[in-house]
């Protein structure tokens, strides 16, 4: 669809722009403002890049960053294949399909602090089904004082919470495949794997990019669930970037460093966002080109 050039369209965008700008630009400027200053008993001094240097050279930031990447890649490696597998196995239509969708969407609508509380209770070593069950199997498990248990619990919680999003996206991608493709594949005697590789996977490509993007970004800013479940502990073992940042800004009141860290953090997400956006628009353009040729 070709669109007409019309700069008055800005008028339609304006109310939205104002509201988002209040929330995005002003706080961002506040953060930038603090990042270059040093506070000393309520007075502010120009600090240049000292705050950035302090953050970038601190072990605390490096460790939080490493934990963050370890967490994000682990959950991506679990949730994406698992979500695709479940979507492939779901009934394609009928009442059971809607029952599945409704039940699977349920975790997505639970407030994040409740997700944390729920897993907190579920995983209690003496009272929770999960904790009690694992200990009953003879494995020593206590997420409040063992880093390994804490990590397993946090990852299980995230898989529980977000795999459904991948399932729903992949399922929607599969729904868009015309039955004719499957019939043709059947006539050609294509194997299950060939159907997946040459029909289903290409059709899911677009939604899978979005799934990876969303899961990457959202897990990169995970805060509430982990805070309620483990409080970032034991020690600092589950202190991810957001938790560390809020600790710095509100708990320790080192605003300058917190602001510098915010900016570094934001730039990282922005970079990833831009990479995916380019990837997406490119595959859009390719699809259009192909459609144009047919």
């Amino acid at each position, binding site marked *: *669809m070709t669109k007409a*050039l*019309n*700069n*008055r*369209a*800005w008028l339609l*965008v304006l*109310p*939205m*722009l104002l*509201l*988002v700008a*209040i*929330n*995005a630009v*002003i*706080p961002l400027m506040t*953060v930038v403002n603090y990042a270059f200053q040093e506070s000393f008993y309520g007075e502010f001094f120009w600090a240049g890049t000292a705050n950035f240097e302090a953050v970038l050279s601190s072990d605390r930031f490096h460790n939080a960053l490493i934990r963050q990447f370890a967490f994000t890649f682990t959950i991506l490696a679990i949730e994406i294949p698992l979500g695709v*597998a*479940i979507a492939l*196995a779901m*009934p394609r239509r009928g009442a059971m399909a809607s029952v599945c969708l*409704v*039940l*699977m*969407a349920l*975790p*997505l*609508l*639970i*407030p*994040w*602090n409740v997700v944390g*509380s*729920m897993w907190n209770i*579920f995983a209690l070593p003496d*009272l929770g*089904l999960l904790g009690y069950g694992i200990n009953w199997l003879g494995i020593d498990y206590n997420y409040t004082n063992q880093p390994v248990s804490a990590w397993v619990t946090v990852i299980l919680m995230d898989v*529980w919470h977000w795999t459904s999003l991948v399932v729903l*996206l992949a399922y*929607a991608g599969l729904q868009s495949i015309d039955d004719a493709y499957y019939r043709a594949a059947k006539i050609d005697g294509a194997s299950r794997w060939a159907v997946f590789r040459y029909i289903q996977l290409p059709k899911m490509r*677009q*939604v899978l990019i979005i799934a990876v993007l969303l899961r990457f970004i959202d897990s*990169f*800013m995970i*805060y509430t669930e982990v805070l*309620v479940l483990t409080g970032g502990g034991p020690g600092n073992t589950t202190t991810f970037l*957001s938790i560390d940042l*809020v600790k710095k800004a509100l708990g320790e009141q080192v*605003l300058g460093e917190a602001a510098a860290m*915010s*900016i570094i*953090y*934001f730039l990282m*997400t*922005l970079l*990833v*966002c831009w990479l995916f*956006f380019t990837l997406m628009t490119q595959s859009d353009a390719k699809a259009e080109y192909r459609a144009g040729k047919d």
Partner: protein
Amino acid sequence: MSTTNARPTRRIRLKWLVPTLYIIFLMLPIYWLINMSFKTTNEILAGFSPYPQNFTLDSYIEILTNPAWYWGYINSLTYVILNTIISVAVALPAAYAFSRYRFVGDKHLFFWLLTNRMAPPAVFMFAFIELYSSLQLFDSHLAVALAHCLFNIPLAVWILEGFMSGVPKEIDETAYVDGYSFPHFFVKIFMPLIASGIGVTAFFCFMFSWVEMLLAKNLTTVQAQPIASVMTRTASSSGYELGLLAAAGVLTLIPGALVIYFVRNYIAKGFALGRV
């Protein structure tokens, strides 16, 4: 012949296993929460039991009769609904502009919008507190509703733009030729055409505002505090009120479950646009 018949049936039976196991996995923690919510404190402290022995509604009665508790829910629902209305209302014309016109800077604007969906709230948190304090809105429903616009408006524009692009442009042109003014056309003709899209958008705005707690908690203290704050206070103040905490958690599941039920046929469609 017999082998070709046997194979598909076996595969179908195995296929059922995957979603079934997954749903069981999803339901277990929820079951456990419900289980805990019907137990008395004594029973909880007595140790592990797979279902309530002395079934009680005490926790629910406490929550539904104590204003400190039920105001948490009312506050949460207030800012969520407020946010949904604001987000959809300003996103509608903006999405129309993106779907119908080219204008200076449109692509950059769209990307900038998306980056806001991706910005970690923790990054802006203390700046948000300062901003809403200086606007005299701190600890009000409006503050949270406006703050949640940061990620909900971009989302709403994105989803709506997809639905609007599915409506042929000829409809707009015919209406203008027939002498409809833009607002008249938009409300009377265009909005009914994308009604399901508006529904899906409202659903996602509701969902993301309802689940977000970092901003909601930190922008409020007393007047507008969300249910999350009340729950956190309970968890930390009196140690072992697990039954109460569980019951409060179960009650937060209800709005979500209701909303999903109503839009169940559209969920896949909203996701199909790949715009969440």
